[in-house]
């Protein structure tokens, strides 16, 4: 196994709050690596630093051997990094297909194409429909995003990251706010992705995490206190004390 993403000695403070505190993390190619931790542990801040939305105060992030610590956010997807948001962030004024087309096109070079009608782009359109079908939104493809249900929006949120054919997916609580049935749909979707793409998964749903994850890292106060296989994490004293409680 090779390491795809490597984070070392990452620090990020907001005022007196250390959101990321000497964080070290290695994600291997092809694994589904879950990051768990109590609320406020700094999980989303970590994702934001990995995706380039927030820059760390110190430390390094390397992806596939390249130092990307200071790389601009819009440049990272072109290396093969895609993220989703904990709070759904889509282009609400457009259709499902419109959103996916933009996501697919983002990686096909520049979009300084002023003349050719957008609708003529058959290949991208077909790819967008395929992508919608993957997350079971095929029949909802022409619907405006604002009119989708929450569960459908969450699925599109993941599909946007899939559309870019990324090598590394950063999924920030894909199950957030989903009902039991929608959640199990999402879990099956994530299961199909497993092994195809490297995934960093942040999630609060412990059943989902222990079902899906190849390895788990536990984050407390911006620091990763343990990394290991699900069975080891379950039995780890520190983890139980800090996070899982006494069950």
């Amino acid at each position, binding site marked *: 196994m090779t390491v795809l993403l490597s984070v070392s000695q990452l620090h990020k403070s907001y005022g007196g709050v250390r959101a990321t505190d000497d964080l070290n993390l290695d994600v291997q190619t092809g694994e589904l690596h879950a990051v768990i931790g109590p609320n406020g542990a700094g999980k989303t801040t970590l994702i934001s630093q990995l*995706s380039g*939305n927030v820059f760390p105060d110190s430390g390094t992030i390397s992806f596939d051997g390249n130092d990307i610590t200071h790389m*601009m*956010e*819009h*440049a*990272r*997807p*072109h290396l093969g990094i*895609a*993220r989703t*948001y904990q709070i759904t*962030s*889509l*282009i*609400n*004024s*457009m259709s499902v297909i*419109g959103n996916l*087309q*933009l*996501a697919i*096109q*983002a*990686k096909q070079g520049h*979009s*300084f*194409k*002023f*003349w*050719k*009608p*957008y*609708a003529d*782009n058959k290949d991208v359109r077909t790819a967008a429909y395929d992508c919608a079908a993957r997350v079971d939104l095929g029949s909802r493809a022409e619907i405006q995003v604002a009119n989708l249900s929450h569960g459908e929006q969450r699925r599109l949120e993941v599909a*946007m990251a899939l559309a*870019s054919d990324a090598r590394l997916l950063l999924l920030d609580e894909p199950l957030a706010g989903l009902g039991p049935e929608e959640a199990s749909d999402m879990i099956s979707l994530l299961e199909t992705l497993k092994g195809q793409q490297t995934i960093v998964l942040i999630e609060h749903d412990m059943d989902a995490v222990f079902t899906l994850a190849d390895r788990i890292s536990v984050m407390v106060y911006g620091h990763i206190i343990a990394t290991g296989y699900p069975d080891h994490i379950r039995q780890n004293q520190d983890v139980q004390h800090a996070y899982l409680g006494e069950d």
Partner: protein
Amino acid sequence: MQKKVFVQGLILAAVLILPLLLNYMGHPFYLDLATRLCILAIAAVGLNLILGYGGMISFGHAAYLGLGAYAVGIPAHHWLYGGMDVIATTNGFVQFGLALLVSGIFALLTGLICLKVKGVYFIMITMAFAQMVYYLFISIAEYGGDDGLVIDTRSEFPLVNFDNSTQLFTICAVSLFFVMWLVWRISKSQFGMVLAGIKGNEQRMIAMGYNTFVYKLAAYVISGMICGFSGALLGNFTTFISPEMIDWARSGELMFMVILGGVATTFGPILGAITFIILEEVLSTITIYWHLPFGLLLIGVVMFVKGGLSALIPKVGDKE
């Protein structure tokens, strides 16, 4: 949908044919009015590209009208009175080329700064840059300063004569249709979709891998150049240009047209310009306080007509 296209076609035909007809029947006043309408509509179409399609609310687009007009006036001034031999000319191609170049460069340079900020700050900075141009022209005594500059000789082109009001009107109307078509094509292109995506959710577009800044800048420059072109026509039409046409109130009027007509629509800006010109003409004969009912109308449309006046067109057409 068919009816909508039909009604829009009817309005465009009316804008083109009615003034020519009235002029032929001995009412040249309406030709003048329509010429001004077409010129302002071109600027509104240009502004709509960034305000409507791009969600960037520029409060300084009158600056481009001014730059375009002075790009005609200054070469004509030197041609007559000497000095600045490099640009002294009445050649229309040079003057219009200069208008596009100067407005494009001004948009590029100011855009690099304006587009670093968003929302209210963007509005304020665009306005500040426009005011800088305003005070620049006030301070240049050579070009009349506060008093303005008379263009003695209009732009000269082969085949068409700008001194002929019918020909000038036809050029302006055709230019308007061309610019509307241009912006419509852009809005339907891949670039247009990216622009719409940025308007909808810029953060997501960045996360997808779009360098949104350069796309916004490109739209900003195109928009500025369209308004610069409109300014060059305006200079030829009025033959008198002054810093007053760059005043922030003029920028506000352009915004008024776009918002009243319907943002991010092909037809909205021209509809807004028609309404603006007609109301200005009608109301100002009734009262010198014509801005008041004007303002009330804008409030009414913004509050009660979603999508501006152009959204009313299919409804008008559907009534049968």
